[in-house]
């Protein structure tokens, strides 16, 4: 009889660590007709291949967005051909063109009306930063001042191929999400704001001029003199 303490019994239903399955083993199983997956993979796979955009055109880029949904470029190959006129049925807000200060409250309101999970693509120079019209007194210098943007597509306007590339990048981003933890998408995190404050078209500028929760002015770093 030894007086050494007995190790605590490990819970049978929860092994200490799951044996990792390699991609080669999974491919081998798939070859035998066995599909092995996790809830997370199933969730992100379904999410990423049925991204329905909102039928919402702002300016020049909207024409290229329509062109991307037509026969030559055929956005249907990526599961996004269903352009929904109502924000309640849409997953993706493509901000396709210049957002003016008069239009910005409506864009934020549309974003608030979309159900989670939802994504935003800033298409074109104007939606990213104001683009060629940045000097204008009525032009918002980037929609990311009010709503979180997932993918930025540069160009004036971006070609339809660029929009498709942006969509594929978004799908890759969605596939990288986990259901729990810090990599979880925005709507599964407790700190998610849910509603984004809608700015008002004030006398001089939008009030507030940006949403501090999603955007802050970049700090200027001056190079030290040598």
């Amino acid at each position, binding site marked *: 009889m030894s007086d050494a303490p007995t190790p605590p019994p490990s819970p049978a239903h929860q092994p200490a660590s799951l044996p990792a399955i390699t991609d080669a083993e999974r491919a081998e199983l798939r070859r035998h007709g066995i599909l092995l997956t996790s809830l997370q993979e199933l969730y992100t796979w379904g999410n990423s291949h049925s991204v329905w955009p909102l039928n919402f055109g702002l*300016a*020049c880029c909207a024409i290229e967005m329509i*062109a991307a949904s037509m*026969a030559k470029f055929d956005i249907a190959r990526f599961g996004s051909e269903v352009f929904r006129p109502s924000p309640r049925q849409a997953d993706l807000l493509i901000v396709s063109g210049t957002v003016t200060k*008069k*239009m910005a409250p409506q864009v934020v309101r549309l974003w608030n009306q979309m159900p989670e999970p939802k994504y935003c693509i800033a298409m074109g120079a104007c939606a990213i930063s104001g683009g060629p019209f940045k000097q204008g*007194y009525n032009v918002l210098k980037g929609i990311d001042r009010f709503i979180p943007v997932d993918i930025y597509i540069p160009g004036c306007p971006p070609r339809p191929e660029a929009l498709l590339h942006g969509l594929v990048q978004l799908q890759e981003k969605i596939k990288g999400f986990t259901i729990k933890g810090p990599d979880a998408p925005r709507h599964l995190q407790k700190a998610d704001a849910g509603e984004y404050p809608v700015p008002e078209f004030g006398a001089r500028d939008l009030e507030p001029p940006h949403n501090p929760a999603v955007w802050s002015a970049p700090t200027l770093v001056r190079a030290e003199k040598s």
Partner: protein
Amino acid sequence: MNPELLTPGGANVRAVHDAFHGDLLEVSMGPHHPSTHGVFRMIVTLDGERIVKLKPVFGYLHRNHEKLGETVSYLGSMPYTDRLDYLSAMTNNWAYAIAVEKLAGQPVPERAEYVRVILAELTRLLNHTCLAGFLMQDCGCSGTPLMYAFREREKILDLFESLSGSRMMCNYQRFGGCRVDPTPAWVDATRTLVGNYGAFLDEFEALLTGNEIIMARTQGVGVLSAALAINAGVTGPMLRATGVASDLRKSDAYGVYPRFQFRVPLGAHGDVYDRYMVRVLEMRESIRILEQALAGLPGGPIMDPKAKLRGFRPKAGEAYGRIEGPKGEIGFYLVSDGGPNPLRYRVRPPSFINLTVLEDMCLGQTVADAVIILGSVDIVLGEVDR
């Protein structure tokens, strides 16, 4: 609600109807509405299904085009004109180039004039084809006509891209000529496209023009009288659909248009169907112009050798240049004080002025008709709000 309206057996339907009869409903269509071709907003007051008042709200795409035009150089405004009416960049470029050339007294070589005519007529084909597709989308033919239209649009855009480097925003015209000389291969490709375009129009018209549903939907809808159209300053296919023979290509005879044989199609009723028909017939005439221009394309320089691009400062004065764009008279008014920037830069946007008669066309129509009436005006918000 009057409690007498509720009878013991339930609501008295006739009494409720009488009590609310004549009550008006205000509907805000836009700025996000699939039918408004962008961010246009209409506040429509309805009596039942009929429109009794329509108030347009502009400015959702006001990008300060004219103010920016005063802060950049003359040539610097050329890319901005692309973004006015973003379906027809080439004609915007041409109208602006004509205004500056008038201001500076700059001649244009013959080859460039021919190339400008070719590009303007290609733009007209592009614009009218897309408009017909969008109009049919508004009528409820979801998909097919727009798919056909965009298929042809891509072919024209390929030509624009191979010539200017960009699909939509061509930035091609310069003061005193064009930026790039078209190669013989480009001219051949254009000839092939023009040769095939008639067959496409036959296919398109077989689908739409004699279609009973479209005729029932569009004939007699949104009638605009010739007198009102003239008084409101309406131009382009909308004016010609009312039966007024007015085409700047004939009356101004700018460029080399007097050398070509073509007719100006006119409508008779001024309704949505006539506006569609005038545009289709205009495309047929554009094909005739293109065939003649491609056959007679002369050699020589594409730019005037004495044209000055850098340090361009026209003498003090003012000029108004206009052409017949696909949507109507597009004009640029410039005032110079001898500096590198215009002192005043003003655009005459055809679709904005055509839009001013929207309420007159919509009164008494149903709300579903307002959608196709707006579609037949052919607006592009970049130009309406500037």
